[in-house]
């Protein structure tokens, strides 16, 4: 039988960590703005400061992401196969060629970053390159190029900014405007801050919803570029580690272990799906299935 593949590390812990990181970053960000607001800075100055902070994030998005993921930019000589695929995809889509990076980790994954098409970087992990076949790598990189083409880094940055603006509008109504407030001391500041966190949590949910929508759009982009939705389906199944869940032992040899069989199959949606940056695997594959069907009927 086939050689036993090592089970890929689950993504759940990573997602949770990233969500908490986002929450803490947002808390610090809003906390900073709230303190400035209590120090008497007016609404418009506050908005400018917020815009500058997000601007830094926006203009240095590629550097921030590359540094935090440990991705290394590679030359065509260092990674000829990866570059060849990117070259071909760029020629097909008419996009300027992004810089190409490899993340030296075994977890199969890929991402795109950079504020504009010219400044974009596409990164793939070593685990992805090792485990996926050529077609599947093409499909994944086409997905990432679709993010670049859809300008998703810009979209998501603007979305975060809009939620900040919306939050301060709510605050100014709730507290009777920025100019007419009187200083209430520490407890007032705490209340404002707690409400700010709640509003921020809601806005995070909304941006995550937007993010999931962008992922589905990038999946569609990949299917259109390659013309083969099934390549991405196959890649997603490999990356997600779903196949690793299937048992290797024959049903008949498992017969002695009856107790395992009476455990009811659990199903149902996890609350984590609300916070997820990516739509569920099932949703993504279903969309690709529909596309494949439509393409087949043409």
């Amino acid at each position, binding site marked *: *039988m086939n050689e036993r593949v090592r089970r890929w590390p689950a993504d759940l812990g990573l997602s949770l960590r990233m969500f908490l990181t986002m929450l803490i970053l947002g808390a610090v960000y809003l906390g900073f703005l709230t303190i400035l607001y209590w120090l008497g800075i007016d609404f418009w100055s506050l908005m400018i400061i917020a815009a500058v902070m997000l601007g830094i994030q926006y203009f240095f998005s590629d550097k921030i992401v590359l540094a935090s993921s440990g991705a290394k930019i590679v030359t065509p000589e260092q990674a000829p196969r990866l570059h060849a695929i990117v070259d071909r995809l760029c020629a097909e889509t008419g996009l300027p060629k992004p810089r190409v990076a490899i993340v030296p980790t075994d977890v199969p994954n890929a991402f795109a970053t950079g504020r504009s098409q010219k400044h974009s970087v596409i990164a793939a992990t070593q685990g992805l390159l090792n485990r996926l076949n050529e077609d599947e790598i093409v499909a994944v990189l086409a997905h990432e190029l679709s993010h670049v083409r859809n300008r998703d880094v810009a979209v998501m940055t603007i979305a975060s900014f809009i939620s900040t603006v919306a939050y301060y509008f709510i605050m100014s109504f709730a507290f009777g405007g920025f100019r007419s407030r009187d200083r209430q001391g520490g407890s007032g500041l705490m209340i404002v801050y707690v409400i700010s966190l709640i509003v921020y949590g809601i806005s995070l949910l909304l941006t995550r919803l937007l993010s999931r929508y962008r992922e589905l759009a990038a999946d569609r982009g990949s299917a259109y570029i390659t013309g083969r939705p099934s390549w991405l389906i196959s890649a997603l199944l490999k990356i997600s580690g779903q196949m690793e869940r299937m048992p290797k032992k024959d049903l*008949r040899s498992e017969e002695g272990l009856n107790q395992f069989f009476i455990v009811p*199959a659990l199903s149902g949606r996890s609350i984590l799906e609300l916070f997820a940056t990516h739509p569920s695997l099932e949703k993504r594959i279903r969309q690709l299935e529909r596309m494949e069907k439509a393409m087949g009927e043409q």
Partner: protein
Amino acid sequence: MGLLDFFRPRSLPPPKIDDLFKLTPAAVTMGQLRVEPTGMAGMCFRSIGGVTFEDMKSGILKVLENSAFLARFSVLTDQFGFTWVVIDSDTLADAVSNVYMASQLLIEGGFSDHITAAIFRFEQGDLPVYWVYNYRRAAFYPFAPRGNERDMQLEYRLRLLVMDELPVDSLDYWFPIWGIPF
């Protein structure tokens, strides 16, 4: 059920075999992946010695012989020592009815702990795709053997396609069954 019953060894509840009939309508949906039904089915159960078991086996064969859903059948034993009743019916609907009747007989005879699976053969082109009904789990799962491997992608896509109309088991219980004799 008392608290102590929980710790007592007990027989499994009788399988809910009515779900078998959901396979026929689901087969229409599977056509989207060009997976087509056949009339071939098999029941796989753990052989035990004894007069009652032999009586039960011949009972099953008698039921199949007199079935209104005309079928040819054979009995064989595999390398795991499991008994297979292979039923060759004209259509999937007939195969389901025959398996249902035989299952009912097994369960009524008190042998529900010994039935492992009912397996229905489908085909994609010339390649077999099986739908396995696991009696203990009361759920189906697909199995598409390709040599020594299985086509997990096809299996997963079939699951997505029919999971609303057919009780499909969690992926953790998709045990392969190598060497299905039909």
